[in-house]
């Protein structure tokens, strides 16, 4: 039929336009999820980015950020050329310089440090996806002062998991989306598994599985949950322990699983006052013992054919008393203080609800058991004809981790999973290779006394997993050796460092002064710092005597004009994710999923139109200039003259092990281990930029005890040897610290730290009131204040995106309607939010779906005026706000005036969500603009004027109609 006007002119529609003249596959980096993307180019311009259907992470879908990659890539905030500061730091006065000048200047500063005291370099990387390179670089440089963002992010989850079950939540494990029938999610709005979680939830809901979300806020995932548990922040540990209490009371525990896969049958020495108290009884070979119920004797708990007792008092051959860890665990949680009615008021979860959820968990785990007729062989070589599944799965993230009790809460959740027998079984929580790893992983942090020397690499990587006080990085007098005080008595198991403390400590010169702060991809003068205003002034502060900056040099690599740029002395402009080589390595944070390992690359799909260089490239160049071992060849020339791609293909971490696992060996036929393959990157490009190996069915579950899998993992270098990985519900490592605090051993905490170590290094999960809440007056600061990640923004970097900022460019404080009414606050009112530290002014939005004692806002929507190439009066700056201003990096002072960092006492995890505030309506005259406000940042030289109209895409249409 003809459409159209009188002349019958019907619209001619080109229903089959050619989308692009070129299609390239690479990996998204609008966030850390690492989805595969298919990029259509037209005349060299990005026309369309779509999800790669073959890709194991996103299977064709793309989130809101990934779908806005075009605007990220063409952002007017992109830095264009190296910049050298000329005015005062923080004023944003720069001149453009050539790369040669920039690199030689950096090499000069760094060379001087390396020749004298490598510790004076603090190298911290934020949203780093190349930690295997950056960490190695730091090692070769010789500074222990290295970490990525994990410490302020979710180290509680990583450490909580790795010290308990050898794997963790975060993106390192996943629910068995296809098979689970009951899914509990604790404190998640997005996670790094952004798309996988959404894909998974969609499937799970379509199948009719029950989904419970435990979260003070009901948005996003919680909104589609079958049940929302609007818990009071910081109390999940108690809630979970009450569930454990109910299960134990009813005997709804998978004893066979516990006996086979956990250390709960191991005998714990009961010798109060001695240095072995609470440690495992061991035989001469060091094997832990259990009590064989048949033999009525202690035997090695690692033998396959034992019949371990789980309860009872036993006497060891040496006469000491011992009891199975299970018994200690059970007695603890059977205590009436964990009864549902006792925890109801603290958690805000009604006792009936707790009892019911416990009953539901037990029902699904034990009555709805699933069986896969898949034979497998256990670690001891025994064949099993099927795989038994307890289809209860759990997932948790920052709602658990970002509290000062998060490490223990995370362990409590793992304990609950273990008791239900639901880890790494069909329908349960599954490890993603390279996990599981031995508990904890074997790597220890380097940087002890004597390990940091001029012109010398560290003997090992700066980050690792202490097994006891002997692995701490402390001076003889107990003081911290790292600038962030990781692995000190203040944060002994800080396996990701404490990035949130670097600037404060460096400014104070505590424990010592540094020379250069070298940052990469971290917006430390804004959203990734606590006490943002304070941090800004620390970055610009000078010694009154010398007039020199307290932090003498700051080098920063960013791709965009972020708030941090103004505080750098030297800015190294990075490429965008579509312009560079990158590697998402198995040595680092790969894209594996539970069915098998996978890794990926990025490769340049468009050439940079600016004088920018990828940071990896720059790092290798600097390494060569500094003569770092491994980065120079025998003649002192660069080892990787081909830059980062050269390194990716040819670097070997151990013989045959390199950054990429696919297509190894000279002919590219090997994977995992094999000689470097000169064509490796080409193979990746041909295979849509990723490599993936699917495990045989018999290796997909029980990986911690699956002989075939463990052997495979050993050849891949995931683990050192194919031994069973036993889950540690009872943590001997923690007990060792506790014993040190009790006065045993050669390395003991200073007196001021003893009580704290003793209290928080309980070998079994404990719950305590989060520190800030415990320290401030509940009447002055009655409300919890949280942030959540918007699904369509990535921290601070989404707001430069012309599309994403249209969805949200100002944020409000969400508050329960009833609570607001009681405070005389109406919808849309402006309020002051005051913490023990500071206050912010913002506008409220009243809702039903939030815990009544909680207020919250979206994370990192608020921007500093002028940053990100936005107009100075952009709503991001004038009506948006950053909650970070009221979060202190330090806790209120202890009696002696000492202020601990606002962190978990075990891992040093930043306790963002411990924040307590009061909210008061502000005077009408104060309405309209958020506070605090800061002077407008000046745009660096070379950045273009922003357009008043964007007609992106018009050119494609023209090209179509023309051709």
């Amino acid at each position, binding site marked *: 039929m003809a459409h159209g006007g009188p002349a019958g002119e019907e619209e001619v529609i080109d229903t089959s336009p050619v989308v692009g003249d070129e299609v390239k596959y690479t990996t998204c980096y609008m966030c850390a999820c690492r989805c595969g993307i298919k990029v259509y180019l037209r005349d060299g311009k990005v026309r369309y980015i779509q999800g790669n259907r073959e890709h194991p992470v996103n299977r064709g879908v793309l989130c809101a950020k990934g779908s806005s990659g075009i605007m990220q890539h063409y952002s007017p905030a992109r830095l264009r050329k190296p910049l050298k500061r000329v005015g005062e730091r923080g004023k944003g006065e720069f001149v453009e310089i050539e790369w040669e000048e920039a690199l030689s200047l950096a090499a000069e500063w760094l060379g001087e440090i390396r020749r004298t005291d490598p510790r004076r370099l603090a190298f911290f990387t934020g949203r780093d996806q190349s930690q295997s390179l950056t960490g190695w670089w730091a090692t070769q440089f010789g500074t222990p002062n290295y970490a990525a963002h994990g410490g302020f992010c979710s180290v509680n989850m990583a450490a909580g998991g790795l010290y308990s079950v050898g794997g963790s939540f975060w993106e390192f494990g996943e629910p068995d989306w296809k098979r689970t029938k009951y899914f509990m999610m604790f404190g998640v709005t997005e996670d790094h598994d952004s798309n996988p979680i959404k894909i998974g939830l969609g499937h799970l809901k379509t199948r009719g599985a029950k989904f419970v979300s435990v979260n003070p806020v009901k948005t996003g995932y919680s909104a589609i949950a079958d049940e929302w548990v609007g818990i009071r922040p910081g109390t999940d540990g108690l809630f979970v322990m009450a569930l454990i209490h109910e299960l134990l009371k009813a005997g709804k525990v998978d004893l066979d699983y516990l006996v086979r896969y956990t250390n709960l049958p191991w005998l714990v020495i009961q010798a109060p006052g001695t240095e072995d108290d609470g440690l495992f009884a061991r035989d001469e070979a060091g094997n832990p013992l259990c009590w064989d119920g048949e033999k009525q004797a202690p035997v090695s708990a690692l033998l396959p054919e034992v019949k371990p007792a789980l309860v009872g008092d036993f006497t060891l051959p040496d006469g000491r008393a011992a009891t199975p860890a299970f018994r200690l665990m059970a007695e603890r949680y059977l205590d009436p203080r964990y009864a549902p009615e006792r925890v109801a008021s603290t958690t805000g979860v009604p006792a009936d609800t707790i009892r019911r959820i416990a009953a539901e968990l037990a029902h699904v785990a034990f009555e709805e058991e699933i069986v896969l007729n898949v034979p497998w062989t256990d670690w001891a070589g025994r064949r099993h004809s099927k795989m038994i599944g307890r289809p209860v799965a759990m997932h948790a993230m920052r709602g658990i981790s970002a509290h000062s009790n998060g490490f223990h809460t995370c362990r409590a959740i793992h304990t609950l999973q273990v008791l239900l027998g639901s880890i790494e079984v069909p329908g349960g929580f599954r490890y993603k290779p390279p996990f599981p790893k031995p508990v904890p992983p074997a790597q220890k942090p380097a940087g002890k006394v004597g390990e940091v020397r001029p012109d010398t690499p560290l003997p090992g990587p700066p980050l690792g997993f202490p097994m006891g006080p002997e692995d701490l990085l402390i001076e003889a007098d107990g003081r911290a050796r790292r600038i962030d005080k990781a692995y000190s008595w203040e944060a002994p198991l800080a396996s990701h460092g404490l990035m949130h403390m670097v600037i404060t400590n460096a400014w104070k010169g505590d424990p010592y002064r540094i020379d250069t702060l070298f940052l990469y991809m971290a917006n430390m003068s804004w959203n990734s710092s606590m006490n943002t205003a304070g941090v800004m002034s620390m970055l610009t502060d000078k010694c009154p005597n010398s007039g020199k900056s307290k932090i003498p040099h700051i080098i920063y690599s960013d791709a965009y004009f972020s708030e941090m740029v103004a505080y750098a002395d030297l800015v190294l402009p990075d490429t965008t994710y579509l312009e560079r080589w990158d590697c998402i390595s198995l040595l680092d944070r790969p894209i594996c999923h539970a069915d098998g390992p996978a890794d990926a690359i990025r490769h340049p799909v468009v050439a940079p139109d600016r004088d920018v260089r990828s940071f990896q490239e720059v790092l290798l160049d600097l390494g060569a200039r500094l003569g770092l071992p491994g980065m120079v060849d025998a003649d002192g020339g660069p080892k990787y003259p081909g830059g980062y791609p050269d390194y990716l293909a040819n670097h070997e971490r151990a013989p045959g092990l390199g950054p990429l696992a696919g297509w190894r060996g000279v002919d590219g036929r090997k994977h995992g281990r094999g000689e470097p393959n000169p064509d490796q990157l080409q193979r990746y490009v041909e295979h849509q930029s990723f490599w993936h190996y699917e495990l045989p069915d018999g290796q997909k579950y029980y990986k911690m005890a699956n002989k075939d899998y463990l052997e495979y993992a050993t050849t891949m270098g995931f683990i050192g040897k194919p031994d069973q990985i036993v889950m540690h519900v009872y943590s001997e490592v923690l007990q060792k610290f506790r014993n040190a605090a009790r006065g045993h051993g050669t390395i003991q905490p200073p007196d001021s730290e003893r009580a704290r170590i003793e209290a928080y290094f309980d070998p079994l999960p404990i719950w305590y009131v989060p520190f800030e809440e415990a320290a401030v007056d509940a009447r002055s600061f009655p409300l919890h204040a949280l942030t959540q990640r918007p699904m369509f923004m990535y921290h601070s970097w989404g707001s430069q995106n012309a599309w994403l900022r249209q969805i949200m460019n100002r944020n409000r404080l969400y508050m329960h309607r009833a609570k607001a009414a009681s405070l005389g606050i109406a919808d849309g009112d402006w309020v002051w939010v005051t913490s023990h530290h500071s206050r912010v002014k913002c506008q409220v939005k009243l809702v039903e*779906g939030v815990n009544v004692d909680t207020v919250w806002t979206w994370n990192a929507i608020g921007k500093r005026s002028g940053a990100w190439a936005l107009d100075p009066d952009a709503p991001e700056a004038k009506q948006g706000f950053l909650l970070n201003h009221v979060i202190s990096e330090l806790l209120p002072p202890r009696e002696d005036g000492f202020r601990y960092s606002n962190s978990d006492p075990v891992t040093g995890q930043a306790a963002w969500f411990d924040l307590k505030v009061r909210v008061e309506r502000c005077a009408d005259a104060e309405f309209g603009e958020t506070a605090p406000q800061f002077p407008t940042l000046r745009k660096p030289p070379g950045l273009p004027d922003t357009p008043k109209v964007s007609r992106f895409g018009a050119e494609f249409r023209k090209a179509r109609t023309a051709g």
Partner: protein
Amino acid sequence: MHPAFSVIFFTTASGAGYGLLALLGVLGPAGVIPAERWFGLAALALALGAVSLGLLSSTFHLGHPERAWRALTQWRSSWLSREGVAAIVTYAPAGLFAIGWVFLERNDGLWGFFGVGTAMMSAVTVGCTAMIYRSLKPIHQWHNGFVLPAYLALALVTGALWLNALLHLFGLGHWAVTATALAATAAGWAIKAAYWWFIDTNAAISTPNTATGLRTGRVRLIDAPHTEDNYLLKEMGYRVARKHAAKLRLVAHGTAFALPLVLTAATAALPPVLAAGAALLAAASVSLGVVVERWLFFAEARHAVTLYYGAEAA
């Protein structure tokens, strides 16, 4: 709805013009108004000028005025198209009628027939304009039985008051015109009052529940899809404050109806010069009043799309 100046000007000016044209077309042939050349020139020029200016101004708010001719093509379904066609068609009898009156000083017979034709086409055109709004189901304040009569009546009111003023200026005042003006104004007032009563007492059929299909309780917007105003909100999210609207309604009552009624009634009793002044004042008053009324017609109209943006009722 956003009260766009060009649309308000268009509907008021063209309404007045067509009202005037229609009255000339009927009252001329009926012998109430003599076929006096200069009066005819003034009145017809005013009427056709108002209509033409209105039509012209209505193209100002178009994205592509140069394509305006296309708007004449869809008269089978579109009231806007019909309005355009009717407006253009009206020029034919109106032109002939004007030739008769101005050049031949005839408004009777065949020429009068053109007058009646003009009147009919004027009514049709104003009716089409009204139907553009009347037919829009998403807007409760427009999609009701009062809109068509109100448009017709207001065109007549303004036309009559303008006519009365003109006649007085030319010393041709006639009781029948005064009576027509009085009757039209009273009727217009009644219709408009009824319209306001209707929109104040009747709720739109659509609610947040029907808009979303979520029917288990009260539906409240938590987050809009965008934090800045977009086209929809700028165009259709306009909301006039209740207090403000009430004040403006008073102004409209006064200037569009009450004052013109009093002034027009007074023309009957006043000496010619004063009567002419009063009639002129009445015409000015109603012109202002109708602008205010028309502004309110838009400003008080709530589009169903606002239900998606937090409006509790449309």
